[in-house]
């Protein structure tokens, strides 16, 4: 079962380093203030809802998981769910979640225009409000621009605080790559990192996928990460 989950093209040694997403390893100057604000606001139980918005690759999912780790560290239970993943299960999956002091829902766009889901989210919000609990959601747009069909839900999301994440700059991307490489025990010289940034798509997730690929190839070939090696693996 575990093998199935991790996918087929993996190393013979079935160990994969865990990528716990915390505030500590949410890197980059551009969104540092936003992350700091989210950490503090997630401790404020009088705040019913926080909307973290930003384009793909800005680290929204990372921050949601970071909130959960942080909440657990404070001795409260929390839950982090991806709505796109839950979609096939139907909106009843949200039942009972309001008992958690913090519920983080990633990718609210996945349910926009889906009336039963929007209504279920609305009821979840109300129950969390009644319980004095906090709901944190991510979206690519601000609540007013999301196009939610249920105005009651849109209005409730607007009642909270919106935290905007910006696209990382190249220096931030380099930092993220370097940190991930270090966590993998991989030596990524700066010039190689900059080379990757010059050639690859600069979407953070894609960059990390490239690093995974380079990591595996480097291990298999027993080669260090050099520009020629990266060129040969990536076909650049």
């Amino acid at each position, binding site marked *: 079962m575990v093998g199935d989950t991790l996918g087929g093209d993996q190393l013979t040694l079935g160990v994969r380093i865990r990528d716990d997403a915390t505030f500590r390893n949410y890197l980059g100057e551009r969104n540092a203030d936003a992350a700091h604000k989210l950490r503090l606001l997630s401790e404020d139980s009088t705040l019913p809802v926080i909307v973290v918005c930003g384009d793909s690759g800005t680290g929204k999912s990372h921050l949601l998981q970071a909130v959960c780790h942080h909440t657990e560290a404070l001795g409260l239970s929390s839950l982090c769910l991806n709505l796109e993943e839950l979609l096939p299960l139907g909106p009843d999956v949200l039942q009972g979640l309001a008992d958690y002091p913090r519920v983080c829902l990633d990718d609210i766009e996945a349910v926009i225009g889906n009336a039963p889901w929007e209504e279920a989210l609305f*009821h979840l919000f109300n129950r969390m409000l009644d319980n004095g609990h906090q709901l944190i959601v991510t979206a690519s747009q601000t609540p*007013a621009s999301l196009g939610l069909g249920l105005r009651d839900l849109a209005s409730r999301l607007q009642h909270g605080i919106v935290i905007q994440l910006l696209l990382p700059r190249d220096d931030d991307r380099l930092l993220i790559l370097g940190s991930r490489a270090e966590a993998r025990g991989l030596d990524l010289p700066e010039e190689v990192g900059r080379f990757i940034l010059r050639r690859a798509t600069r979407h953070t997730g894609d960059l990390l996928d490239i690093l995974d690929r380079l990591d595996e190839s480097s291990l298999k070939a027993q080669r260090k990460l050099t520009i020629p090696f990266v060129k040969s693996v990536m076909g650049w």
Partner: protein
Amino acid sequence: MPQTIWHQCLEVLRDEFPAQQFNTWLRPLQSEHQDDQLMLFAPNRFVMDWVNEKYLRRIEEVLKDLQGGQAPRINMRVGSATAARDMVQRSQTANVESGRQDDTGPVSEEEKGVAATVVDRQPRREVLSSAAASRRRNVQVEGDIKHQSFLNESFTFDTFVEGKSNQLARAASMQVAENPGGAYNPLFLYGGVGLGKTHLMHAVGNEIVRRNPRAKVAYLRSERFVADMVKALQLNAINEFKRYYRSVDALLIDDIQFFARKERSQEEFFHTFNALLEGGQQVIVTCDRFPKEISDMEERLKSRFGWGLTVMVEPPELETRVAILMKKAEQTNVRLSSEAAFFIAQKIRSNVRELEGALRLVIANAHFTGQEITPPFIRESLKDLLALHEKQVSIDNIQRTVAEYYKIKVADLHSKRRTRSVTRPRQMAMSLAKELTNHSLPEIGDAFGGRDHTTVLHACKKIVELQGTDTNIREDYQNFMRLLTT
């Protein structure tokens, strides 16, 4: 078996599964050790089913390894460990199996969904006890009727800001509070979202209780009424349910529009409604629209909503919005100048909830930065809220904007021409594309007439350099950032 065995198991599973899966399905499980079994509690039946199907076998294997080959018996349930502990105590006193009368009319799919948490695989006694422990509103289905008002004490007439838009609704509400069950029964408050209907409703309830501390006032959202009813039906306790709701002096139901398509709930509410009116007890209902406009609602119910007084709450006008902001700031001990309040009120026009959200954001930012709340500070703080945020823009859009700004053609940006009048805008556009998009440098080069990525790099460096020495370029760059991101 110490409880830490589950935590040890989680540590192993955490290494085996991707973080997303682990955090979604495994981490939320709570454990409780009872006798020789390990009880695992899932927040709802979907999580339980999913874990059963996808992870249970692996959990059993890991536990077996950790226990030296002797796997504990795993019992998956819906609920929480805390509730389970309470359940043991309560199950001795709960007498739910006997004397219940049934009234099991058809329940729609929507209604079943509302009470999905009680539909699990536990014996009925345990279901009720578990639900009783985890829900505050259990009283009406247990036979021991205790009135819980669920009124928010901070929503009073004193904290309600009156303006032209809500004057009539406030006056009517005050009349009802002074004379519940009188001429204005039911009171039907309707209007758009976030305009203060719920506040007024609570204000009436609080005022009734203030005047008569023995008054039984129940506030609830329509969804809660449905959930309670479905739960009562499942537990054969519908008569308790009816008795509870018909015994209150004032029943306040919020957002009645969510009764749509829930036929059984409408039926039950219809009878409750009639009983209350006949008994001279007050009913207050809020809705997002006029009674006749509610879709998927029985005509007889809509018609009865109009028997008393129907009042609309309208969006607040500017003066009221300013007053609301000043009041909210005062309640949170924040100094807000009337100039600043006026500025926010001008920007946020739709509803009070959004207005409060805006103020909350401004206050939070002021708190974090230590800055004074001034109009420029507010403008910056509300940038996100007003959707004036940085959007992912396309290279095409950048090229069009730059070409238009410098009064050249987009084709010039793609061309081989190297005159200053074309190269500078091209460099500017390339630099903006790097800053505002996720495209790779080769892709950006391609989009500018098939140029090399080194040309893009050079362009970006050049624009950074020029911003330090040439005020025009610096100004142009700032203008583009504003044009493209708002």
